[in-house]
């Protein structure tokens, strides 16, 4: 009974080791920065004659 449990524990640990969730969060922050900058200058373009 205890044996399979131990196995699952090990597996989640290995998964955490190779996880790239921080990378995904980082690139999305980067994407957000690009969008905010672009939209700001687009707003200037629309606002000006």
């Amino acid at each position, binding site marked *: 009974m205890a044996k399979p449990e131990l196995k699952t524990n090990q597996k989640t640990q290995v998964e*955490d*080791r*190779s*996880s*790239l*969730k*921080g*990378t995904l*969060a*980082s*690139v999305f922050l*980067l994407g957000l*920065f*690009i969008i905010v*900058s*672009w939209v700001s*200058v*687009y707003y*200037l*373009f629309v606002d*000006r004659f």
Partner: protein
Amino acid sequence: MINVTAAKIKVDPRDAKLSMAHFFVAFTALALGGLMGLLQTLVRSGKFELPFGIGYYQVLTVHGVLMGLVLTTFFIMGFQYAAVSRTAGTHSNAARRTGWIGFWLMTIGTLMSATMVLLNEATVLYTFYAPLQAHWIFYLGLTFVVIGSWIDGAAQIMTYAKWRKNNPGQPSPLLSFMAVINTVMWIVATLGVAATVLFQLLPWSLGLVETVDVLVSRTLFWYFGHPLVYFWLLPAYMCWYAIIPKIIGGKIFSDSLARLSFILFLLFSIPVGFHHQLTEPGIDPVWKFIQVILTFMVVIPSLMTAFSLFATFERYGRSKGATGLFGWLKVLPWNDARFIVPFIGMVSFIPAGAGGIINASNQMDQVVHNTIWVTGHFHLTAATSVVLTFFGISYWLVPHLTGRKLTKAMNKLGIIQAWVWFIGMAFMSGAMHFQGLLGGPRRSSFSTYGNSQQALEWIPYQIAQAVGGTILFLGIILVLIIFINLAFFAPKGEEEFPVGEAENLSEKAPMVFENWKLWLGITAALILFAYTVPFIDIIQNAPPGSKGFKTW
């Protein structure tokens, strides 16, 4: 394979000598060009004037030529020559001789052009737009620099070809592959500038022809001008992809994806020059927009790069037991100049890249075109991301080549240098971006434009640029101290030339990546697609040509 790599840990001293020759020219250019940059920011603050009747625009020409053309080209050629020697094996005598011929041609060309600039015969800025007409020796010097760089690059290609011949069916070493991609892109791109200089500007400045077609010349220049900035960037990407992982003790996230991104750069860096000409007459707006679309394609490999780099850092951090969403950031080697100096460069590429997308967004260019925003933009891309990475590379490469060690003191000074640079650039580039959005023009000496209210509002930003420029000049002094120390005075020893290994060694890079006929074919097809129709248009509908002007 692995044994062969292990045997080639050190760059051969004969190759090291040629690389170092490049670096001496590059760092001399940095010293002089940096001083010119300082003078410019001081003059434009309105608080200082140049002595001895020296002109602002002459200083600006020297700064642009030395930093944009000399420092970059010489550093890149020296670095790539060493990287190929390290990863594909020592250059043959023939390749080395070729490299030296290229180096001397570039150096002679630089001296010729520099002399004309110093004599005030070529105050045309580093873009030398016709019909401003410089002395013919200036153009001939530039021709020598370009042809010299081709010969210099040929040395890398020869050694790469030799490796391929000796290792049939094997993907070439990553760094060599990347160096050759960049060299090939450079050769294809410089065909444009060579064409305008050889067939238009030289005969015209010699008086053999009376007039020049301005728009043809500008179009050929910008065919070269955009891949030029990628020629600066790709060596930094080489360091980020293939060297930084080894420095931090991690692995390259994916060898194949790194190669793919470099191939995308080769394909999409060139057919995009119109995005520098978006507000120009004489070019059909539809073709401008087509090249805008192609410009956006070249964003994709940078998006891939961002992911790969974060992934390399996160994988390494988690292997050291880091947890949580961002815990891996803490375990990175923050005290290693070889890592943190390029890392600051990487971070700077986030605002730099965002600005680049804005510049290329067709009519949005009208908000920023030829304002000092653009200067702020390329001082983030070239003068921070690229140059800080070059500094970071030289901190291990110079001692590696000279048989010395990066000492603890120099390592610390290197880290201080990078932060000084970062702070100086935050002031200077930041102020440039904001002043540009208010309409402040680039490439202009101090002026209140008849006490215009708008121009008076720009002055505080110009003072901030002078503060930033002064801090940056301190940064240049620091980097020169480190370079001279590592080249001549650091203790003898062995400094590693770090070369990363892929995370998944069993995954061989697809051989199609080495199929040059295919990639050069697609490159040519894209260029022909983007340029043939508008170029024929420009020539067929050309106005009467322009005589030369010397307005300085």
